[in-house]
């Protein structure tokens, strides 16, 4: 298990097992969020490609 450091107030220490589990769970959530954003961007670009529009042209069209 990889140890992570936390600065708790003015003390720097290793994360407790609970804190480490929360930290790793958060990393998983953030990775999923980033993946969802990337997938959305790919889907958006696919639509733009079908329409033959650039991102700026689409923004101008949609206001």
């Amino acid at each position, binding site marked *: 298990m990889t140890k992570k*450091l*936390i600065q708790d107030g*003015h003390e720097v220490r290793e994360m407790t097992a609970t804190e480490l589990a929360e930290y790793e769970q958060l990393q998983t*959530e*953030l990775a999923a969020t980033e993946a969802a954003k990337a997938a959305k961007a790919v889907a958006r670009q696919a639509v733009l490609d079908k329409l033959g529009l650039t991102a*700026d042209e689409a923004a101008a069209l949609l206001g």
Partner: protein
Amino acid sequence: MGANATTFVPSYTSGEVLTAANLSVTNSGIPVFADSTARDNSFGGTGEKALAEGQFAYLEDTNTTQYYDGATWQSVGVAPGLVFITGASFTTVSSVSLPAATFSTTYRNYKILFEVTATSASGGTSIRMRAAGSDNTTSNYRQMETGITQANSTSNNARDNVSNWEGMSGPIAMDVFSPQATNVTHVIGGYTNSNPFSIIGRTLNGIFVATTSFDSMSFICGSGNFTGYYRVYGWADA
């Protein structure tokens, strides 16, 4: 009443013989009073100066220096509206928690400045509210941000029912509303992602929708570790 406090501000008549007590009061500089009642009773009576514009006074009960503007007493050196509470630097850690009891009943609202000056990997900063030494990881966080890139492209960010406010980087400035009260907590502010490959300026509007009392807040590195500093201030009510 302190040793220098007085209950009168004397006025003398021509030819009057002055006592040591008279001179002590006269030479005391700004007269010191126990409170505003003692102050008001010390002017205008027999043998006392008439109150007039420019008169100074010090009140022991409130530790304030005042001057009379001709109509009312005004305080000098009014306490600042923004009062420093805590601050620290951090180096190559994966998470930073403000000290316990940073949020207290002393102030209702807070200003926080948090800046990451170096990171070991890409990834923004996430924020969680904290109480009694534990981060709140419930799915009660909501986040709405409007943003724009340096290339004038829209870069908004919105998340609902998640366990943190995420994606912030660079300097973050925010006001935190009622974190200590058993109330919904709001954060309002903004940040500038200064990653040279993706410069983004975003507002930050976050809500913790449950009525939970918090005494601290944690900033969690999105990946690897980060280095920087933070400062926390309390907004005075008066």
